[in-house]
């Protein structure tokens, strides 16, 4: 029997043929289920496949973290859920189930109701995501009135109430301010107020604190956790900052080259990483343990999505790459109850021991 076949057999015994999703199927509590999502962009240089088959389930009231470097497809995944991809982008295949219904089949009109009312997003840069020529109050009232039947006065009251909730002091005064008159942290609070004014089920936060100072970042993260307790929404936290992920998330997905490398609880990812990329990431950031040692960087450069390798996307940068890594894409393989990784090395481990 060739190596490849024996590997296949072992895999069959251990995980079965189907690619596994951590929560093995859509449970009662699942509010959003993304299944085998492929998103591509048409460009002059050919088709760029930014997301290549990612699946996950999001439970009510839980926080899912998606972490990866630039170009890993984490933001594109978020935009695919919101259906706000750039003009040349499209979902090639896969399903996005919201409460069991595939939103990709919905007409634009229904999607517009879905955005803002059911799912909201906050972006990295609060300056460019607010309109500079309208006052903050106008923009908040607009968001409320678009999605509810409230009168102008009621919408205004709701806006003030939301500003109060996100910790903006003197909300009546702030309503009349324009975005440039507010500080970065204040603007992000306004963005959060706007995102939550229709009490969505899911809040997608795309690098919500990357542009902010650490002390302001701490305020915003604290605020998001607070609001989650109060309003019970689910959060998808998209970030490249492993520190933010460690403190915020129930479940973490590590992405590379548009695919999931590894998923599991924060403890599993940080203390028992099972994918070479995750291990490399953890070695390359300064932490308490390696403060006085040299960092161990991941060699090479991030992957070019225009020509994806046939096998594992991380293979060209992986120190322990094997022959099979070049040839065949690993499925997600169960390392532990709460922990999956798509790396051939784990399968090889099982074979030898």
């Amino acid at each position, binding site marked *: 029997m060739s190596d490849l076949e024996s590997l296949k057999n072992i895999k069959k015994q251990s995980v079965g043929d189907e690619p596994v999703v951590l929560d093995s199927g859509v449970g009662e509590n699942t509010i959003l289920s993304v299944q085998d999502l492929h998103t591509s962009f048409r460009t002059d240089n050919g088709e760029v496949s930014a997301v290549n088959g990612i699946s996950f389930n999001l439970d009510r009231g839980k926080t899912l973290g998606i972490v990866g470097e630039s170009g890993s497809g984490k933001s594109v995944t978020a935009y695919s859920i919101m259906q706000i991809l750039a003009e040349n982008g499209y979902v090639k295949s896969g399903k996005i189930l919201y409460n069991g219904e595939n939103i990709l089949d919905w007409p634009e009109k229904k999607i517009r109701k879905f955005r803002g009312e059911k799912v909201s997003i906050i972006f990295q840069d609060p300056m460019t995501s607010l309109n500079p020529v309208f006052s903050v109050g106008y923009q908040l009232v607009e968001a409320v009135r678009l999605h509810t039947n409230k009168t102008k006065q009621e919408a205004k009251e709701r806006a003030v109430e939301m500003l109060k909730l996100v910790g903006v002091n003197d909300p009546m005064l702030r309503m009349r301010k324009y975005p440039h008159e507010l500080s970065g942290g204040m603007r992000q609070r306004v963005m959060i107020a706007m995102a939550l004014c229709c009490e969505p089920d899911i809040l997608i936060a795309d690098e919500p604190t990357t542009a902010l100072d650490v002390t302001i970042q701490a305020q915003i993260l604290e605020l998001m956790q607070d609001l989650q307790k109060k309003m019970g929404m689910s959060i998808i936290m998209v970030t490249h900052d492993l520190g933010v992920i460690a403190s915020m998330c129930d479940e973490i997905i590590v992405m590379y080259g548009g695919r999931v490398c590894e998923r599991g609880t924060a403890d599993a990812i*940080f203390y028992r990483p099972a994918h070479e990329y995750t291990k490399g990431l953890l070695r390359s950031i*300064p932490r308490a343990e390696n403060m006085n040692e040299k*960092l161990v960087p991941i060699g090479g450069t991030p992957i070019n999505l225009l020509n994806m390798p046939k096998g594992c996307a991380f293979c060209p940068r992986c120190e322990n790459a094997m022959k099979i890594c070049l040839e065949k894409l690993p499925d997600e393989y169960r390392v532990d109850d709460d922990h999956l990784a798509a790396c051939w090395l784990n399968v090889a481990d099982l074979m030898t021991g």
Partner: protein
Amino acid sequence: MENEKVKTKAQSGNLLEVEHLKEYYPVSVGMKKVPLKAVEDVSFTIKPGETLGLVGESGCGKTTVGRTILQLYKPTAGRIVFDGDVLFDSEKKIKVDMLPYRKRMQMVFQDPYSSLDPRMTVEDIIGEPLDVHKLYANKKERREKILSLMELVGLNAEHAMRYAHEFSGGQRQRIGIARALAVRPQFIVCDEAVSALDVSIQAQVINMFEEIQEKLGVAYLFIAHDLLVVHHISDRIAVMYLGRMMETADADELNENPIHPYTLSLLSAVPIPDPETARRSKRIVLEGDVPSPLKMPAGCPFRTRCKYATEQCAKEMPELKDRGNGHLVACWNK
């Protein structure tokens, strides 16, 4: 290229001494011209081959400090001594021609996209400082120097004829570093030099900075907002708030025994990439934002957000005082 360490001649043992540096920018508020006090009284020293990390929130003046030392901005007041030579002294009205010192003090910028000329090849970018200071005898020597610099920062020789846009962010930052190293400086200001890079690339560049320091004995002023990165690379760390120095100490000492309330909250706000620590540690969340430097609070600038603030804080700015082992703190109450 001669890979020997740079030597200093200063008697005090300090490569750079900055005393009571001030930098005001004139800004118009309505019809009036008012000074924006970007840096208000900053003093520190850097030893040869040492890395001083400079941290603080945006707008605290850390970039201005870096640029003012190199006199890219004209200092408003204070004294700058480099390797025993007084570069600037507002009391004695000393101001020297900086050109010879540009050979000894260099800078690496944050954005590797906008700090390289898109119309120049890598060879010309790295060669320009050599041209300016006439550091070669003939063309052959120039090319050799450029190639050895490229090798030093981990670029291939065949990249020499390429343009900046053909490189990734990490490689561009290497070009910027090679340009700074071309004149064999004793001192480099690294202004957020790794902030724009992805984590895996960031580690490569941080290691390169450390290796170059070991090889050439360069001193760095490492300005950054990422406290974990600064802790990793620095020997000592200085914390700034609204144009003033709040605390200076050895890197490990500062992280283990921070004294100033601002340093405490700044450190507690850093998200630690370790779930166990993250669950245990309690963030000290500061209320509100940094005040505008145009409306600087009297006395200690941090008192508006400080829970220990007393009347004395409003009256007078505390001096930086040594609390033992070179741990300097400017606070009345701690």
